[in-house]
Structure formats: C-alpha cells, structure tokens
C-alpha cells in the first residue's frame, strides 16, 4: 500500500470533515435545545454558498474591489451574519408558534422551510451550479518526499476558517454566561426559565450560532469546490446530520467528532472503493454504530448541550 497516498487521502478527509463538523454542530445545537431536527439547516448552509457567489461576482466588483483571497475573506462576517439572521428568523416564524404542538408539526414545518429555501436558491442561482471565481491558491504547502502534496494552501484556508470557529464555540459554551444559559436551557427548559434565563432569547441565540457556522461552512465549500448550487443543502446537510447522529445528537463535541470521522470515511471510500458506494458505506457505519450504541459515539442518555 502506498503510504504517502494514504496520508494525502487522510488529509483531504480531515479538511472535508472540518467543514462537515461546522454544519453538523448546527443540527446538534438545535436538537439539543428544542429537540427538533432542523431540516432547513442544510439549506441555510446552501445560502452560504449562494451569498459567497454573489459576494464575489456582484458585491465586490460593485464596490470596485477585485475578487481575491483577502477580499473574499472579508465577506465571511457578512455572510455569517446574514445566515445567522435567516436561521433565527426561520425559528421565529416556522418553529416557535409550534413549540407546544405535537412534535410532528415543527418537523413538517422544517421540511417546508427546506423546500422554500431551495426554491429561493433556484430563483437566485438558476437550476444549474454556478461557477464561483477561483480565489484560492492551490499551491502546495507541505510536500512529501515522494513528491505528493500533503497539505495545500487552500486546505490551510479551510483550517484557518473552521478551526478558530470550532474553538470559539467551545469557549462560548463552556465559559460564557450566555453559553452556560444555553446548556442549562438544553438540559431543562422550564428550570432554566425559573433561573431567570430568557428561554426564547436563548433559543434564538442558538439558531443564530448554528446559522453563522453554516454560513461559514458554505463560504468555505463555495471556494473549495468552486461552485454554488441550490441543491448543495441536501447532500451536505445529510452528511452533516448523519455526523451529528453518529457523534450523539445534542452533543457538540460529538457532532465535531462525527463530522471529522465521516469526512475521513468519505475520502477513504471515494478513493479506495468508489464514490458511488460512499453513501452506502457512510450509512452502513451509522447503522452499525447505532445498533451497538444507540445514543451515538459520545451521546448521553438524553440530548445535552455540551
């Protein structure tokens, strides 16, 4: 077996996994706090790719700025704010009114939101994928003795966007007042209210964070794959959701771990087996893990916020 080749595949898998982890955390945060699978989350991520596309082809040139890596990076905060607000608005209009309804109702509402966002994507981008200007330098950074590139500059950009966000989230949840309120609300919503925590605001804030992370992931994917497409929400959302379940839905560390594991599995399967078989393998692993550990790799008995 070619070890250098294997190392390259692991490196690709790891960087893909980091992106998946960002999206997976959005699923797990929302599930942790209101026990809802936010089917629209993948599509919020898709809007991140859409906003990146328009940012690079319309907004930046509109301001007379050339699309480059630096100017693209400057778009990130705007994209994150927009997707955060969209995600929180979805909660406000489609889920909050159904908070005390039977659990199937918000689930259907979430699927409806997903279709709405996909159609917004079709209206704005058209039916086929749009090419995103390539601003990522593809230069090799670490080259192995055999001549293969282990890590290229574009992967460094992926890491530079995703890793700080993951660390910031971990800090927020474990060490800040609002982050602790979020965990408390996830563990016992009614008791959290009795503590003086504004439960509705905490839930909105959870959607804001999930949406912001999805927007950043959308940005990275748009640059990395060089495409924006209304349909992206489905495959990425499915993979991210699977990661969240694999890691233990409701568990943030679990979602990050699940994303990285599935990123690795996907790249190994794509290369050594065949891309067509990848979904079969991903879901087989999920089923096997759930048979032996129904709560996922790191899941507690119930969903949790940390």
């Amino acid at each position, binding site marked *: 077996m070619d070890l250098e080749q294997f190392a390259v595949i692991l490196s690709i898998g790891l960087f893909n996994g980091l992106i998946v982890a960002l999206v997976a955390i959005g699923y797990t945060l929302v599930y942790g706090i209101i026990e809802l699978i936010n089917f629209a989350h993948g599509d919020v991520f898709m809007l991140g790719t859409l906003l990146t596309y328009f940012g690079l082809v319309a907004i930046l040139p509109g301001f007379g700025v050339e699309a480059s890596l630096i100017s693209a990076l400057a778009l990130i905060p705007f994209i994150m704010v927009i997707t955060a607000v969209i995600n929180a608005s979805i909660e406000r209009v489609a889920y909050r009114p159904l908070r005390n309804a039977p659990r199937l109702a918000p689930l259907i509402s979430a699927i409806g939101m997903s279709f709405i966002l996909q159609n917004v994507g079709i209206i704005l981008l058209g039916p086929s994928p749009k090419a995103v200007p390539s601003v990522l330098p593809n230069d090799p950074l670490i080259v192995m003795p055999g001549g293969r590139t282990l890590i290229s500059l574009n992967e460094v950009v992926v890491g530079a966007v995703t890793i700080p966000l993951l660390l910031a989230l971990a800090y927020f949840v474990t060490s800040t*007042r609002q982050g*602790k*309120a979020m*965990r*408390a609300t996830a*563990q*016992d919503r*009614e*008791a*959290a*209210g*009795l*503590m*003086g*925590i*504004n*439960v509705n605001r905490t839930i909105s804030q959870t959607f804001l964070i999930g949406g912001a992370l999805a927007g950043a992931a959308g940005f990275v994917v748009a640059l990395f794959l060089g495409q924006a497409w209304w349909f992206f929400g489905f495959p990425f959302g499915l993979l991210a959701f699977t990661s969240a379940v694999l890691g233990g839905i409701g568990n943030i560390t679990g979602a990050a771990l699940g994303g990285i594991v599935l990123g690795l599995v996907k790249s190994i399967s794509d290369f050594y087996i065949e891309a067509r078989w990848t979904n079969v393998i991903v879901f087989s692993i999920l089923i096997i893990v759930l048979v032996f550990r129904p709560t996922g790799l790191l899941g*507690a008995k119930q969903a*949790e*916020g*940390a």
Partner: protein
Amino acid sequence: MLELHDVHAYYGNIHALKGVSLTVDEGEVVTLIGSNGAGKSTTLKTISGLLRPRLGEVRFEDGVLNAVPPHQIVSLGISQSPEGRRVFPRMTVAENLEMGAFQRTADATLQEDFKRVYRLFPRLEERRSQRAGTLSGGEQQMLAIGRALMAKPRLLLLDEPSMGLAPVLVELIFDIIRTINQQGTTILLVEQNALMALGVAGRGYILQTGQIVLADSADRLRQNDDVRKAYLGG
C-alpha cells in the same frame, strides 16, 4: 407581599385550580398542604409564571404577575426550588449555583452569596466541581434550594423539599428552611409531609382538588381533627 385572588388555572381542559386565594406576608413561612394532585405545584407555577391563570389575579407587592414571563418574575424577587429538584444534571454544582444567580452577574455581592450557600450546605462546597447529576437525592435537594437562594429572593417558593429523602435528611432540610427564614427570606412551602411543614410554618392552607378548604395558624391546623386524620396519620 404575595396575594393570590380567586386564581383559576387549567391544563388543557383540566380545571386544576378552582379559585385559589391565599396571602403571604413579609417575613412569614406559609405552608400549602395537600395530597397528590391537589394543585399545590400548579399554584406555585401560577406564581412563578410557568402557568398562566385563566381567571383571578396573582399580586406581588404592587404589581400583577399574571402576564409576566418567568425570567422577569425572578428579577422581581421571587425564586423557586421546583418539584423534583430539576437541577441541571450535566453542569457542575458551582455552575448550577451560577445559573441561579443568572440575573445578577454584575452584582458585587455574588461571591458572598456563594459563601452563604456553602455555609448553609457545606456538602455543596465539597462537591462544587462535580456534575449535579451524580449527586445523591439529598444533595440535589440542597443544590435546588441553594440555587434558588442565589437569586437573592425576597420570596422563596419551595416545592416538596422533603420528597424522597431519608428522615434524617428531612430534619436537616427543615432546619435549614428555618435558618433561611430567620436570615430574612419569606417562604411559601408546598409539602405533602404536613407534620414537618406545620412545624416550621406560622400559617397553613389546606388544598383539596384545586380549592382551599381550610386556612389557619399552624398550631390550630395541627390540632384540627380533620387535618390530623387526613394528613398527620391520625
């Protein structure tokens, strides 16, 4: 200080409170006694804002609480140790206490309140970095009360603090309730353990199927034949 006037509350179509009226004056310990399902916890929920009364009025000091959300009621000076303790199981003891003080982070006396709670419950200090879910039932009850105290309430609502505890611990918890009251906090105590509750309270109300059937001083309630038969085991 607190006044419920003809409060009616529903769970769906179930008429849980059928016109409850009661008062709690500053400095008192008042107990609300009744069997399972009489509406004791429901009464507390209408005070803490978790349940809205459909009719009637809940007044605290000069304000009406009927439509105030739970988190604002805490800042008005009412906090609750809920039935079944409801500590945050995957947060540490110290984090749980911190959540109790959620409304007052800018408050310089916060450290003193940690110390006060740890003085009342030395066990909690020993276990402060342990996850609350791993505590024993008695320790969780101490945490639930300590957490409610962290809000620095003027009125403390205690829902079944003796539930599921060994007799020695029940004694301990009631001693502490007495101490908390002596330190200046008004208490509304909901209990099934009528004997203990009437021991610390000055006045009591007997609740039956959503209605107050008797209201009197704790001493007289203890001597009332009906109360003895129904709640004090003869």
